[in-house]
């Protein structure tokens, strides 16, 4: 925590990497004061970056105001403004960045750039009270197995192409199951009886979901029973992830496993990873649903950690970084 300041560290965080515009306020001691999020749901098809950005522009002021109101603080009390600078969709990131810069200028507060993936991990560590877990981070845009080593979150394995959430959401959309796709696929999967052989692709420590998605869509159009297909798709996709997670757990010897990100809500994935953790005498933890998907509070909390270690950025250097990797970020607070 900032030793120079006698006042409590309070950071407002803005999230806008993809479909969600969120805002939260967190204190440097780990108190989470508010978390307000507005998700863009496209009328049809997937997320168009420009349309999502337009949604973010429309809701931004309301979401920020509501986050401050629920936190019960006046903006002048804030220590800093944090925003999610990447990775994500350019137009969406720039909308959040613009809001954050405007607030920082208007309030004369420092700006903090937060990496979205680091934020998913930090919120999980905070709310699950974990010191040093192996992290499985799964969402619409990311699929990463990571552990902390020598100042950074290292990537032990990741997807080589599409993310797990993206694979399942695209399948759900093509199957007419709507949005959000994962819970619907999972519900149908519970009624699956026949296991259909689908491509299981693990390359070393990495997974590949694009071939699995293509094959599942082909089976869908061939008219295979949807329940069986959902069942087989989920089992195959989750088992691939479990395999690389298990290898990372055996390799690193970490004593806890944290499941975070939007797809962490999946019951079946939780069940599988809990079994993996048990095999290796590690405890299993899953981020609560309100912190699983993209949210503002995780940016605020990670911003508070960064701010307390002096990591602020001048406005003119506050570029968004659409391809900002998890393992490029120095993490001095650990």
């Amino acid at each position: 925590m900032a030793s120079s300041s006698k006042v409590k560290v309070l950071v407002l965080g803005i999230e806008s990497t993809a479909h969600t515009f969120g805002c939260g306020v967190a204190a440097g001691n780990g108190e989470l004061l508010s978390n307000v999020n507005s998700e863009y749901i496209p009328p049809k098809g997937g997320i168009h970056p420009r349309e999502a950005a337009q949604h973010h522009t429309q809701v931004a002021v309301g979401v920020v105001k509501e986050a401050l109101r629920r936190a019960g603080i006046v903006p002048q009390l804030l220590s800093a403004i944090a925003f999610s600078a990447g990775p994500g969709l350019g137009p969406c990131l720039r909308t959040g960045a613009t809001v954050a810069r405007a607030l920082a200028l208007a309030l004369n507060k420092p700006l903090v750039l937060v990496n979205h993936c680091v934020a998913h991990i930090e919120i999980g560590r905070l709310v699950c009270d974990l010191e040093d877990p192996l992290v499985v981070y799964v969402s619409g845009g990311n699929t990463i197995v990571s552990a902390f080593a020598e100042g950074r979150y290292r990537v032990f394995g990741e997807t080589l192409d599409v993310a797990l959430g993206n694979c399942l959401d695209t399948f759900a959309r093509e199957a007419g199951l709507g949005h959000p796709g994962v819970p619907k696929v999972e519900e149908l999967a519970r009624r699956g009886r026949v296991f259909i052989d689908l491509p299981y692709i693990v390359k070393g420590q990495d997974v590949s979901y694009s071939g699995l998605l293509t094959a599942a869509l082909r089976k869908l159009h061939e008219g295979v029973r949807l329940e069986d297909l959902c069942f087989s798709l989920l089992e195959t996709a989750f088992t691939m992830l479990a395999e690389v997670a298990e290898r990372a757990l055996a390799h690193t010897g970490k004593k806890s496993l944290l499941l975070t990100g939007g797809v962490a809500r999946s019951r079946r994935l939780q069940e599988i990873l809990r079994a993996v953790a048990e095999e290796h005498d590690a405890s299993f933890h899953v981020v609560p649903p309100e912190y699983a998907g993209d949210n503002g509070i995780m940016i605020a909390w990670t911003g508070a950690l960064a701010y307390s270690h002096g990591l602020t950025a001048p406005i003119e250097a506050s570029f968004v970084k659409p391809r900002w990797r998890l393992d490029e970020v120095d993490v001095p607070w650990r």
Partner: protein
Amino acid sequence: MEIIDKGTVIKKGAEAVLYKSSLWGLPVLVKYRRPKPYRNPQLDHHLRSTRTLMEAKILSEVKKLGIPAPAVYWVDLEQCLIAMSFLEGIVLKEALPRLSEEEIKDVFFKLGEYAGAMHARGIVHGDLTTSNVILCSGVPCLLDFGLSDFSKDLEHHAVDMHLMVRALESTHYSLKDLCFSRFMEGYASAAGEHYAQLVKERVNEIRRRGRYIEERRTRD
């Protein structure tokens, strides 16, 4: 377990459990791919049996190339286990700091030859690191073909080589250049100068891709 008594556990990995046992009076290593309770049973058996079969096949092929590796004694595809000869020696990762320069040169030249011969035959090891080499009376022997595959693809061959580079960088940094140059010389002697050059270029390219950010920046 009818024919083979699994014996005592010597290592529990993510993929399989290793046991030391005996068969027909010989010391054997039993590699048992246990069922994973969290997998769909059909998928579980499919993965375990295809991988067991592939490993046994490749171990036999590697033997034909004259590469020192465990000899397959018994395969049980129902239980998904392989009994193979038990090699006594020191893992290269542990032994390397104590070897003389001449010994290091010799070991890495031989390892390069093994890799070159396997690639020429269309086999990739899949986990070629100093942890998977054991020195038996000074002779390097290759272990753990659990991630091996048949492939004639330059990319897969380069990934094999890249794994060795990464292992050298992470655990034997000061010896990395010596080891890798000898490794490449041995490789060229078995796979040919031209192919060795192609593989080397591809290894550099792999390093510049996404995950190896520093190299990419210096190139840019």
